[in-house]
């Protein structure tokens, strides 16, 4: 790692002031720290957000569930269990237990890795991303691989999720990195169904509108046919064709899990 200073603000206001310069925010660090180790970033100053109490916790209200940006995946999984089991499942299977104890929802959304789990949950549920400056609809927030609507220094302070009638997450795990190879989040609302796919597209997380249309008319796995358009990621672990194929498979499985109320499923070995 290159040398840097580390700041540990305890209030959002202090964090914001510290981030006004060239500093970079540090959430749980589960992606940023490995990146720093490889000397692929040279931030000068890191502003550690983990000491800010006002950015932590899960609260349920009539409008849905709000999760503080500094809430870890594990805390979110626990807090979401009753309100949105599909999203709780998603959070409970990010990375591994140690990653879930440090990594945060805000950090994950701000990073917007094209294979991350939270973006699928946020986009699939039509969440609202709350920052220190404004509120951004998920549909406007994700703007391509590692690209979001956030301005420099803008902090994700909370994420508000509407509560769906049913939802579930299905992911095929890339066995080395533990990121999804492809995963689908499906949520059914009274006014329609949303389907978000992560891991597949070169444009990052996306809504699969054709599947949404079919599922809004008939929420059953069989109606998910065809494949999404657009450029797909191809790497060591799967061709573009394979990923395109998996979009439908994962979506069908998520629908089935939503109907069964199991929250979701992941590919695993034995």
């Amino acid at each position: 790692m290159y040398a840097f200073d580390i700041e540990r603000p305890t209030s959002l206001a202090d964090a914001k002031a510290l981030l006004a310069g060239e500093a970079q925010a540090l959430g749980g660090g589960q992606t940023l720290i490995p990146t720093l180790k490889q000397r692929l970033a040279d931030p000068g100053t890191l502003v550690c957000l983990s000491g800010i109490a006002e950015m932590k916790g899960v609260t349920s209200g009539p409008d849905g569930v709000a999760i503080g940006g500094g809430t870890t995946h594990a805390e979110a999984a626990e807090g979401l269990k009753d309100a949105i089991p599909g999203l709780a499942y998603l959070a409970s299977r990010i990375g591994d237990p140690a990653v879930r104890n440090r990594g945060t929802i805000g950090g994950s959304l701000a990073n917007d890795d094209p294979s991350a789990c939270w973006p699928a949950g946020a986009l699939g549920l039509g969440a609202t991303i709350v920052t220190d400056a404004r509120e951004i609809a998920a549909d406007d927030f994700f703007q391509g691989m590692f690209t979001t609507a956030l301005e420099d220094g803008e902090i994700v302070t909370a994420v508000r999720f509407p509560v769906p009638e049913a939802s579930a997450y299905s992911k095929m795990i890339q066995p080395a990195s533990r990121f999804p190879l492809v995963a689908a989040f499906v949520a059914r609302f009274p006014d329609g169904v949303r389907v978000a796919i992560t891991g597949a597209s070169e444009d990052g997380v996306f809504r699969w509108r054709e599947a949404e249309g079919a599922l809004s008319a008939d929420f059953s796995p069989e109606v998910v046919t065809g494949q999404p358009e657009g450029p797909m990621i191809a790497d060591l672990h799967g061709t573009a064709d394979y990923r395109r194929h998996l979009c439908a498979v994962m979506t069908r499985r998520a629908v089935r899990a939503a109907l069964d109320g199991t929250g979701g499923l992941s590919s695993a070995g034995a």
Partner: protein
Amino acid sequence: MPKDTGIGASTKRREDVRFLTGKGRYTDDIDVRGQAHVVFLRSDVAHARIGGIDTSEAEAMPGVIRVFTGRDFEGVGGLPCGWQITDRHGQPMQEPAHPVLAQGKVRHVGDPIAAVVAETRQQARDAAEAIMPDLEELPAVIDMKAALAEDAPKVHDDLTSNLCYDWGFVEENKAATDEAFAEAAHVTTLELVNNRLIANPMEPRVAVGDFNAATGDHTLYTTSQNPHVIRLLMGAFVLGIPEHKLRVVAPDVGGGFGTKIFHYAEEAFCTFAAKALGRPVKWTSSRSEAFMSDAHGRDHVTKIELALDAQNNFTALRTETYANMGAYLSTFAPSVPTWLHGTLMAGNYRTPLVYVNVKAVFTNTVPVDAYRGAGRPEATFQLERVIDLAARELGVDPIALRRQNFITEFPYQTPVAVEYDTGDYEGTMKVLEEKADLAGFAARRKESEAKGKMRGLGVNCYIEACGIAPSKLVGQLGARAGLYESATVRVNATGGITVMTGSHSHGQGHETSFAQVVADMIGLPEDMVEIEHGDTANTPMGMGTYGSRSLAVGGSAMVRATEKIVAKAKKIAAHLMEASEGDIELKDGTFTVAGTDKEVAWGDVTLAAYVPHNYPLEEIEPGLEETAFYDPNNFTYPAGAYACEVEVDPETGQVTVERFTAADDFGNVVNPMIVEGQVHGGLAQGIGQALLESCAYDEEGQLLSASYMDYAMPRAHDLPMFTVDSSSRTPCTHNPLGVKGCGEAGAIGSPPSVVNAVIDALHSGGHRVGHIDMPLTPARVWAAMNGAVPNMGAAQPAARTDATTEARSVGGPATRT
């Protein structure tokens, strides 16, 4: 009643307590007072000419002590190769120089260009980034077949081509083999890849060099499976340090699997620099660095043909293999695709004619050398795959076809030079059938089908040659070292015993199992025996741990030394009891005189040896310490039969291993618990090779699977509970313990049964797929189900893409900021 002590007991491991409490002492835990740290600048391109290296900026940076380049090692020996192969035409292999730091050219990503020694590791790394090498990039050769083309760029300009050797075995059998193929009733042909792997012991390599200017003594602490071998190779061939002035210590070592056998540049560098700078110098590899500097394993591309007569008897076998050496010859690299591979091609079968051709090829990749099994997994995989394919083509039961061709009489002289001393292949197959409940497979398949999954059963046999090795024989085959082992048994005055062995333990539990043997021979509690290893200063010359040799060879040396101890102790006891030596018996740590009630305790005899007041000094020396060297007169031949059951998800191609059963014949067993553990670990690595692990390069020679983001290590939920059984036993006939070795079996025996099972599953679902190259990732299986030919028979580059998860996910955020 299970045995609770000595040979045959599942004694709990004594080494566990220190590992479980954080008190192990691994090389990275060693800090020598005053040490400096080295960081290597490694090539990020596969092939380039070095114009010049500007180190001036780096030298001026904070904390930097000195920057070394290849120029500092002119006149210093290169890393030696320990095995010379003679080719089909009687010519020696081409053997390039392997400098400690690159000279003239870099030849693979990771080749060290320069080394920065600084006060701290961070300072060294900061400065390494400031070095400006002038690299004129050259076209790289990655694909082995392309590397042998007439106009291919040469990895080594001073060699005539990229061909290291073209080996034929047994060359005299070639014509007869070809003739048998011409007359065959059926010929099955299969082209396949044995995927390149990275051993990945969890402890990355570390080296600490130290030099005492006052005495001229060098010390190297290193993560090695064989400290004596490092002392010999580095002392004699690289740095010119006589062995009595060089101590090599390999303390607790966090796994080896072959990749810590070899002598590496970093060891020589730290030893050299410690003297040059008058400071201890430490190097700790990061995992990313390990991926491009630890020797890799496997990487064969093979065409295998099996000839059968009208009754389905195997009549001949013919193979052509391209074996990747990488950019330089690692310590034992040339022996792996030849003597550790060709000699096993008969397998468990009576095939009368075998011809093996191996072309070893230099490419711009990390050197390839022995990895758990080394040559034998490659032999087993191709043989057991082609037999399965033959059974499918002929419409016969794959187990019956194997049985029909089993070797049943021993000793058995194979057509590929080795003589199997003993075995019972029908015996292990019967155990397998029972333990794996093969009779219940059809019902289990129905259950899987009801869940929408395809289920397959794969079975294979294996044989390996272990207990490496008879020195005289391997000398004739080109080995530049002997392969004996040694032990010193030191009995202390109060009766406790210290055994010093050249075998190194890095997970195998020698400290426990070796003590069981010695304690058993004398009849003492095991805790009266201590095992010391890993330090050339206090152990006799030994060759180390690899090739499943520790108990068969090192244990035999220990038995021989203990026999000498017992013989001498009996003389002392006879004197003490005024009896005839021939009447003395030793049981449960007590000497008795046959036919009398006279007895004397072990401790009284050992005390007499060191306090020789009443002692036959005119006949024997005082003291009780003996050394033995043991050189085996044959290899050992563990063998067995394995069965794998998989489910394949027809929608995703995901393979899950539902059941895995191993029936092994290891001869006698000293500690059944440890033996089972060794098999479990081998199975995980073999299943990992079959389903998960792939070391892939792109066409420019960039290593794609360069971290755990892209190199898939088997994890707990990738594997089932295993059923392992080693009750079928034909003890080795030529070593005193009757043991054969168990360390590599699981890794050798498991890949074919996994692949056989997946192919069987696909056929059950109507997919007539002949073969899929490892690893059988979901994407490859899905492609095969859908008519694609995923990478089948293709040489490197293994990958058809240059994209990785690491580059995307770890590199991603940085590209934004």
